C-alpha cells in the first residue's frame, strides 16, 4: 500500500443552517477542501451520509454532489454506516488511493437534519428495528442504559458524566465552526431537562446541519503541495452486535476496541503515543466508554480521568479539542470528516486558541449506532 496524506480540508459551520440545502452544504465544504489542497482536479469522491432519504427525501447523493460540485464525470458514491458514515468514507477513499488506482480523492460527509423530518425516528433506524426500536427505545434511551450500567459497575457519577459536556463546551467556545460555542457549568448540565435518565439535554449531541470534506493523496503529491504533510498511518474498523442487549458487557464498546487495535497495529503506535484525539461523544457516557476502550485510561476510570482534567487541551491526552459532537454539533454523516478537519488543523499547527502544543500524532474515532460500528484513523505529522 502507498503512503497517504491529507492534503486539503474544509467544512461548513455546523448548526441550524436554514438557508443552506444538503447540496449547498456539501459543495461549500468540498470547494474549501479543494482550495485548501490547491489541486486542480479530483479523481473520485466518496460522500458519507447517514440518511438523506429520511431527512430531506434525497438519495443517490454521490452523483448529486459530483454534479453540483462540477466534478462529473468522476466516479462518486455514498458511503453509509449510520453516524460513522464520514469515517467510513475516508476509509473507502484511503484504500482507493493506497491501492494505486487513484491519486487525488475527495472524501466528505454531509447531513441536513433540520428540514422538518422526524429526526428521532430517522436516527433510530440505526438501531435494531426488530428488537430495539419496536419496543420504543431511542438512542438517548440506549446510551442512558449504558450510563446506568457504567455507574453501577464502576461507581461512575453523574458529575463525572457532566464533566465531559463541560469540557467539550469549553473547547467548542474556541471553534468558530461550532454550533454551541458557549461555556456551560456542571450544575447547568445536571439540572437541565432530563432526556433519558440520567442523561440531560446538555449530555446529548444536538441536531445539526453541516458538511466536512478532506482531500487525500499519495505522499509524493502531498509533498509538492507546500503544506505540512499529515500522513494517515493507520486505519481500523470493526463491528459489534447491532442490538445493545446482545452484548456480554454493555459498558464496553467492543467495536471501538477492535477498530483501535487494528489502527494502532497498522500505525505501529500505542495509546500513549497519541497527542490528541477526536472521539464520538454523541452522549456524555459515550466519551467515557470510548477513552477507556481506546486505552487512554483503565476500564472504569474514564469518569474520574475526565473529571481530573486529563482530557482537556493541556491535559495528558486532549480529547475533542474541536468541542466534539456536543458543542461543535453532530450532522451525523459529516462528523467523521469534521474530526479529520480538526486533527489536521492541530497537526498543521493552525488550530488557533485550541492548539495542542507540539502535536505530532492524532487519532480520530467515529461510531455508528450504539457502537455497532466504529472506525479509527491515526494521523502523523511528517517531519
Amino acid at each position, binding site marked *: 500500500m502507498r503512503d497517504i496524506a491529507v492534503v486539503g480540508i474544509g467544512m461548513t459551520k455546523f448548526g*441550524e443552517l*436554514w*438557508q443552506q440545502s444538503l447540496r449547498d452544504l456539501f459543495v461549500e465544504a468540498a470547494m474549501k477542501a479543494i482550495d485548501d489542497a490547491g489541486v486542480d482536479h479530483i479523481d473520485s469522491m466518496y460522500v458519507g451520509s447517514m440518511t438523506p432519504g429520511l431527512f430531506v427525501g434525497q438519495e443517490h447523493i454521490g452523483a448529486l454532489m459530483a454534479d453540483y460540485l462540477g466534478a462529473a464525470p468522476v466516479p462518486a458514491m455514498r458511503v453509509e454506516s449510520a453516524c460513522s458514515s464520514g469515517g467510513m468514507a475516508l476509509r473507502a477513499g484511503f484504500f482507493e488511493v493506497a491501492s494505486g488506482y487513484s491519486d487525488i480523492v475527495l472524501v466528505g460527509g454531509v447531513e441536513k437534519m*433540520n428540514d*422538518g423530518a422526524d429526526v428521532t425516528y430517522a436516527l433510530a433506524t440505526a438501531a435494531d428495528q426488530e428488537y430495539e426500536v419496536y419496543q420504543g427505545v431511542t438512542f438517548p434511551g440506549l446510551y442512558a442504559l449504558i450510563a446506568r450500567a457504567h455507574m453501577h459497575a464502576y461507581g461512575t457519577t453523574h458529575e463525572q458524566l457532566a464533566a465531559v459536556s463541560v469540557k467539550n463546551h469549553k473547547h467548542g467556545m474556541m471553534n468558530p465552526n461550532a454550533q454551541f460555542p458557549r461555556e456551560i457549568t456542571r450544575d447547568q448540565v445536571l439540572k*437541565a*431537562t*432530563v432526556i433519558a435518565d440520567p442523561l440531560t439535554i446538555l449530555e446529548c449531541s444536538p441536531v445539526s446541519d453541516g458538511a466536512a470534506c478532506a482531500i487525500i493523496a499519495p505522499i509524493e503529491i502531498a509533498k509538492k503541495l507546500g503544506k505540512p504533510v499529515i500522513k494517515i498511518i493507520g486505519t481500523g474498523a470493526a463491528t459489534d452486535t447491532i442490538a445493545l442487549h446482545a452484548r456480554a458487557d454493555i459498558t464496553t464498546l467492543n467495536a471501538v476496541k477492535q477498530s483501535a487495535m487494528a489502527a494502532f497495529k497498522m500505525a505501529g503506535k500505542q495509546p500513549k503515543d497519541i497527542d490528541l484525539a477526536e472521539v464520538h461523544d454523541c452522549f456524555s457516557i459515550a466519551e467515557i466508554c470510548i477513552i477507556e476502550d481506546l486505552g487512554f485510561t483503565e476500564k472504569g476510570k474514564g469518569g474520574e480521568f475526565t473529571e481530573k482534567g486529563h482530557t482537556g487541551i493541556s491535559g495528558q491526552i486532549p480529547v475533542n479539542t474541536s468541542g466534539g459532537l456536543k458543542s461543535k454539533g453532530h450532522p451525523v454523516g459529516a462528523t467523521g470528516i469534521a474530526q479529520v478537519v480538526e486533527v489536521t488543523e492541530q497537526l498543521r499547527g493552525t488550530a488557533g486558541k485550541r492548539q495542542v502544543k507540539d502535536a505530532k500524532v492524532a487519532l480520530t474515532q467515529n461510531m455508528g449506532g450504539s457502537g455497532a460500528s466504529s472506525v479509527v484513523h491515526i494521523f502523523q505529522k511528517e517531519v
Partner: protein
Amino acid sequence: MAGIVGYGSYLPRYRIKVEEIAHQWGRDAVAVKRGLMLQEKTVPGMDEDTITISVEAARNALKRAGIPPSEIGALYIGSESHPYAVKPSGTVVAEALGVVPEVHIADFEFACKAGTEAMFVAHALVKADLVKYAMGIGADTSQGAPGDALEFSASAGGSAFIFGKDDIVAEVLNTYSYTTDTPDFWRREGAFYPLHGGRFTGEPAYFKHILGAGTAILEKGGYKASDFAFAVFHMPNGKFPLTAGKKLGFKQEQMEPGWIVPLMGNTYSGSSPTGFSATLDVAKPDDLILLVSFGSGAGSDAFVFRVTDRINEVRDKADKLKDMLEGERFYLDYGEYAKYRGKIIMND
C-alpha cells in the same frame, strides 16, 4: 391624521398553570417555565369563543371611544379560531354591538397576525375617508395539541381598536408590513390542532419577520429604539419577544408593560394587540409606541403610534388589562381544562 379613538380588551377568568400541564405529561415544570418564561395561561369558559371575546373587547373599546356604534362603517376580526369555517364571526359581533346593517365586515386569518391585519385595514379605510370609524379586532381561543409545547402557551383573549379621525387617543404615524412564504406553522382544513416546524419557527420565521419589519419601520420613520417609550412584539412565549426587542435595541423596561405573556399565554391573533392595549393603559401623552405582530406563514405588521392627551380622559372608562390579568382568577386542573377545551370526546 387617523388613529385609535377607543381600545379595549377581554380575557377569560379561567387559568391553568404550567405546573398542571407539565404534571399531566410528565414534563419538568421548572425547566418549561425557565425555557418558555411562562407561568400560567388563560382558558376560555365553556360558553366563550372568539365571538364572545370579540364582543367583550369591542364593548370596552366603545366605552372608551364614546361613539355611537352605528357610526362604525367597517368591522374586521382576525382570528385563527373563528367558530365557523363558513359564516362570519363579524356579523354576530356587529349585531351584538348594534353596528349593523350599514357596515363592511370580514373575518381575517393569517395565523397570529390576523389581529393586526384587521387593525391595518381598519386604519387604512379611515385614513382614506371611506368610513368614519372602523374597528379592528384580534381574538382567539388558541389551539395547541395535547402534549405539544404549544399547550403551555395557547390561550384565550382579545382586543379591539376603533380607528377614526376625531378625538384620537393614539395617532398612527407609520405602518409597515413584511411578508414571505415561510411555512413554519399551519393547520389544515379539518385538523383539530396546528402543526409546526419545531425550531424552524424561531430564526427563519419569528425573528426574521419581526426583525425585518421592526428594522424597516424604524429606518422608514427615522427612529431610534430610544425614541420610544414602549415596544410590543408578538408573544408566542416569554423569551422570543424579549430577544427580538433587545436585538432591535430596546430595553426590557420599554417592553415590560406589554410583555403580558407570562400570565396570559399566547392569545395568537390577540397576542400583540392585547400587549399594546396593556401598554396604552399605562402610556402618557406624547409617548411613542412600537407594535410589531407576527403571523406564521409568515409575516409581520408594524405600527408606530403617538399617544395623545386624550389617553388620560379615556383610560379609566373601561377595565384595564392588568386588572383582568391579575384580578379574580379561577384555576383549573387538567381534567377541568380538558373538559373546558372540548378535549373529552362524547357520543353526541
